[in-house]
């Protein structure tokens, strides 16, 4: 499959995760970007860029988790991105793990809200990513996330 430019899947849960992902838009200039999140209401945030709604991952409900993973897997199979970039939370984690199985390169940007320490889930997700980033310099580790800046 030949492409003239990289294809990026930018995926996040709603609320703060989505707001942070949108702020990273300049990183995707020159790429084909596909945005994915759990609410149709966010479509207007991305203008005419490609936008998909995925099933949100509801932690308290196992069936919900399976449906979420399946909707993300379907999206990955359809779009075949070169890179997945996510600011979390659970849907981003699924995209990371499933993407890896498909040979897709992955980026996990830990939320700026994790300011004192890495969350357990963030560490679990980040350590699977090809590029694991924290937004606070004091949280960078040699065997852990790198710090390059934040979304402000």
């Amino acid at each position, binding site marked *: 499959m030949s492409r003239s430019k990289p294809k990026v899947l930018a995926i996040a849960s709603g609320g703060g995760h989505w707001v942070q992902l949108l702020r990273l838009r300049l990183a995707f200039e020159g790429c084909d970007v596909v945005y994915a999140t759990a609410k149709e209401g966010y479509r207007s945030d991305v203008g005419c860029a490609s936008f998909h709604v995925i099933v949100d991952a509801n932690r308290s409900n196992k069936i919900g988790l399976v449906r979420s993973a399946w909707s993300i897997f379907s999206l990955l199979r359809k779009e075949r991105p070169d*890179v997945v970039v996510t600011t979390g939370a659970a849907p981003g984690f699924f995209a990371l793990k499933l993407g890896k199985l498909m040979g897709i*390169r992955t980026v996990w940007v830990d939320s700026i809200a994790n300011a004192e320490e890495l969350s357990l889930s963030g560490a679990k997700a980040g350590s699977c990513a090809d590029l694991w980033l924290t937004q606070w310099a004091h949280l960078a580790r040699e065997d852990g996330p790198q710090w390059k800046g934040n979304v402000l």
Partner: protein
Amino acid sequence: MILVTVGTDLPFDRMMKIVDRWAGDTGRRDIFAQIGEGGWRPKHIPFVEFLEPAEFKKRFAEASLVIGHAGMGTILSALLHGKPILVMPKMAIYGEHRNEHQTATAKRMMALGNVNVAFDEIELRAKLDLIDELQGREPIEVHASGGLVEGIREFIFHGWNENCR
């Protein structure tokens, strides 16, 4: 118009009750609240449980100041619009949130000079009484630039160039 918001997750009754009592005591009629699904219903403030993203943006843009939980969506929205903002962290020990990150977020953002914080009910009431003196800061850019954006970009294109060889 003062916008009060508890975020898209759980309600924040502890904060709403203080704000509502303050509204009742002062007779202020310029407040509107988003109370969250199943949230405690204020007696002195018009409210909705939930705001669609477009409606939320509109209310935010029109607000003269924002009172809210210390969630990143709320804080970033306030910074984008240059709105004065007062936040109170939701706490896991009260079942308001999954973890205590909001307290850490609030401390760090306060240290960066980005938000005003009330860490408990007494402090909240005290700051509400002085609310009209609250200052906003210069709006931040719509998109981030700098190290984080460059780092992600480099990762995307370096790998792309490698695979094209």
